[in-house]
Each structure stands twice: as structure tokens, then as C-alpha cells.
């Protein structure tokens, strides 16, 4: 039986007269990788702060790992989740290893957990380097190592690969999938549509504090597709034909029999296209 790791019902959050979240509802199943997509200021970080008890919602209900989200501030619950945000700080005068050892002690972990975490983020060679000697991408990987070193049931990642190069991004994706296969549920916020498609089982589009759409990337793409395809011919012409249409099938058969087709491409929207279609604005 799949159980809910996160359950959010009609959550609202206001700061004075500003409403950051409006009637937000979603459920994340155990073992899922869930992407929360939206531009800056859409309410993503507010949602993470509510789920990790850094903020309390103004209205509605939020449960995390079977307890009200506000109880996540208790020590025993804090050990069950990990968090990486854009402002997760590191001790700059300490080495990478000293930073991780400190947090290993906070979680009562053996020293071997530091080695495992460093291998996970491909930083074993940099363990003796001071944080001030690291690039932004390396710092991001150290904070990720710190977030996963206690093997949490639930991991919150806020733009986890924003400062990484493609090689390290691929390494992190591989590691996150491995962590997910071991049972960790991942709540991810990102602007990066390719990242969301690569990693997420389901995504939610957040715009001005409201969820605009929610579902598996493939389902969303199907739902918002215009069901057309682009056919490129040897003459250089490009034709857009509707799919699942008798006339299109006849036209295609004719072109194929004369060997006129170079390429056929289905016109699926990207997640960015869908977001724009729903909100009239892009994700940046």
C-alpha cells in the first residue's frame, strides 16, 4: 500500500496583506519524486518553509510523515528529513570534512557517514579543502552531502543543481535516483524544466501562490498537446498535420511511398510551454 508522505489541504499563507499561498492542495506518495515548479516569488520556498516548520500556515492543513507539519521542529522529526535550500550555510573557516563531521554529530551518525556522503556528491578528494577554497558548484554539493548524510525519509531540494556543470548535474541525478530507489521521497523545486522531466514522477505548476496544474510530466504533455505532428520533406517544406486523422494518414502514406519524408516529429509541448499556456508567463 502506498502511503502519503506529504498531505497538503487548502493551505493558505499570508504575510500582512500579501497572500503567498492560496488554497494549495496536493499529496505526495511515499517514494515519489515530486517537482514544485514556478517562477521566483510564486510561493515555492514558502511551501518548503511550512512543510519544515520554519513557518506556520495561516489556514488549511499540512501533514508531513504522518504528523502536522508544525511538529517537524521537534528533534525526532527533524532527523527524518533533509533540506537543501539556496541559503543553506556552510562554515567557511572549516574544511569540507569538518563541516560534515559537525552535522554527522548533530544526527548522531558514525564517521563513515561522512565518507559515504562525500562519495555521493563526488567530493571525496576535496575533503581537506576549506570551504573558502571551493567553487559555488562544489559548495552546493557539500550542502547536498550534508542534507542526505543521515539518509532521510524525505528530502527537500530547492534548486539543487542551479550552480552545477552538466557532469556534476548528471552525477547528482544518478545519486538522487539511487537515494529514491532506497525509499527517500523527494520534494524538489526548480525552474529547470529538463530537470523536472528527468527526475520527477509528478510535477505541480505554482503561479502567484496557486497550483495551476498537477500530474505526471508525460500526462501533462499529453493533456496539453495540440495533437499535431511536423513533417519535413526532401523538398525542404515542413507540414503540420493533425494526428489521429484519416486525411493525415493518407497524406503520410503518399509521401512515404515516394520517399519524400526526411523527418516526422510529434509536437508535444514542453513543461515550459504548458506553464506559459496556463499562466501567460514563463518560468524564469
Amino acid at each position, binding site marked *: 500500500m502506498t502511503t502519503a508522505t506529504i498531505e497538503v489541504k487548502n493551505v493558505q499563507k499570508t504575510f500582512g496583506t500579501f497572500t503567498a499561498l492560496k488554497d494549495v492542495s496536493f499529496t505526495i506518495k511515499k517514494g515519489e519524486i515530486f517537482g514544485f515548479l514556478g517562477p521566483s516569488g510564486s510561493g515555492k520556498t514558502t511551501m518548503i*518553509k511550512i512543510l*519544515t516548520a*520554519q*513557518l*506556520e500556515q495561516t489556514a488549511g492543513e499540512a501533514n508531513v510523515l504522518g504528523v502536522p507539519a508544525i511538529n517537524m521542529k521537534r*528533534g*525526532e522529526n*527533524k*532527523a527524518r528529513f533533509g*533540506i537543501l535550500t539556496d*541559503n*543553506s*550555510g*556552510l*562554515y*567557511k*573557516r*572549516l574544511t569540507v570534512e*569538518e563541516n560534515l*563531521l*559537525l*552535522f554527522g*554529530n*548533530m*544526527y*548522531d551518525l558514525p564517521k563513515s557517514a561522512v565518507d559515504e556522503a562525500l562519495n555521493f556528491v563526488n567530493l571525496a578528494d576535496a575533503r581537506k579543502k576549506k570551504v573558502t577554497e571551493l567553487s559555488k558548484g562544489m559548495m552546493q554539493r557539500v550542502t547536498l552531502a*550534508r542534507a542526505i548524510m543521515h539518509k532521510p525519509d524525505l528530502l527537500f531540494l530547492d534548486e539543487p543543481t542551479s550552480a552545477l556543470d552538466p557532469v556534476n548535474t548528471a552525477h547528482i541525478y544518478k545519486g538522487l535516483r539511487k537515494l529514491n530507489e532506497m525509499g527517500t521521497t523527494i520534494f524538489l523545486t526548480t525552474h529547470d524544466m529538463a530537470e523536472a522531466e528527468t527526475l520527477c514522477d509528478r510535477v505541480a505548476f505554482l503561479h502567484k501562490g496557486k497550483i495551476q496544474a498537477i500530474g505526471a510530466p508525460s500526462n501533462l504533455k499529453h493533456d496539453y498537446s495540440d495533437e499535431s505532428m511536423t513533417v519535413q520533406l526532401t523538398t525542404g517544406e515542413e507540414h503540420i498535420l493533425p494526428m489521429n486523422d484519416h486525411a493525415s494518414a493518407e497524406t503520410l502514406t503518399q509521401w512515404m511511398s515516394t520517399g519524400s519524408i526526411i523527418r516526422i516529429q510529434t509536437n508535444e509541448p514542453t513543461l515550459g510551454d504548458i506553464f506559459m499556456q496556463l499562466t501567460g508567463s514563463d518560468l524564469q
Partner: protein
Amino acid sequence: MNMSMKRIQAIFIKDYKEFSRNYAISVMVLLPPLLAFFYNKMGAETMQSYFIPINTTLAMVTAFVQCCLMAEEKENNTLRSLTMSPASIADILVGKSSLVFSITAIILALSIYLVGYEPANIIILILALAISIVFYIALGTICGLYTKTVMEATITVMPVVIVFLMGSLASGFSDKFPILAVAEWLPSSQIILLAEALEVVAPAKELIVPFVVMIAWTVLALVVTTVLYKKRMTDD
């Protein structure tokens, strides 16, 4: 209260490493022993002069260094990271205070030796100094939590430090300026009154009142520290 010695020790070791590599702050510990040495050479013999290096230690080492350490944690968002770990408020506040407490104790012992002060009752003096250290740590923590950067903290803590450091001297001018009599109730003045009472066969009241006043300041500062910490570590 949920406390873990392992976590407190880990924060202490981390703070020690950071402190020893941060020369801008660690150099402050040299000031009180130097002051004590010069006061001794100048022939310090009064309780006021003995307590100048002692109160300087409490203000410039205890409160100032604690303030800078807390402000740096806030500036770098590391305090938030610690708060998000299973460490309790008590683990973090005790862990973050234990290094400054230890350093202060060493500097006080050295300064008292160098200034040539030989208290009549060392046990009672140690007790009074321990209460004072806790008070000044809380004061430094409050200033550190109140500010956002180390730069801001060093500016904010100075007036506070001066009031508590100079309070004992200011109360000496209360004959001319009656308003300054209020400075007599500062912990820095009360510890001098206590030390003077220890040198003579004073009635118990003269020992108890300074203790009660210092404890009251300390309890108040600890309550403010805890409330401010909880407030600063949430975003509501």
C-alpha cells in the same frame, strides 16, 4: 530540557576551530591581561582598579566575542542550518556559549593574577564571576541575534558594552550627578560591591543583595535570549 552532550561538544569544537582561525576576533582575548599587567605596574590597590580588567574581560571578551560569533552564524545562514538539524535550542545555545565561557574563565584567572588581586573568599568570587559570565554571554547572544551581520554586530554591541563596562565607574560620580546612582544596580557595579563586602566582615545582606541583583539580571537576559532566538529562527 532536551540536551545532548555529543552535540554540545561538537558545537564547542567547531566554535574553537572557527575562533582560532578568526584573528580579528580572537585577538580580543589579549586586551584584558595586558590591561591587568599595566594596572599592576601602575600600583593598582583599590577594588575599582582590580575590577577594571575583570569587567573589561566580561564586556570585551565575553559579550563582544559571543556577539560576533552569533552574528557570523546568522550572516552565513549556518545558525539556520543548525536549527534545522535535530539539535535542540538548549544544545545550540549551550554549545555556542561553552567556548566563550571557557575562554572567559581562563582570561579572568590570568587577569586577576596579573593585576595582583587576592580575594578574601575565592569560592564566593568564583560563584559571582560565573553568574556574571552567564549574564554577559546572554547579553552578547542578544546583540548577535538582534543584528544581521558581523559588521552590524560590532557597532550594535559597543554602546551596550560601554554602558555595562563604565557603569561601575559612572556610579562613583553619583554625588554630582544623582541620575548616575542608577548605575550602581548594574551587574558590573554589584560585583564590585560584593568583592568589597568580602574583604571586611560585612553583614549577610551586603553579600546577598549583589547576588540577587546579578541573578535577576542573568535570568532576565536568559529569558530574552530564548524568546529572541525562537523569534529569529522562524520567518513568521
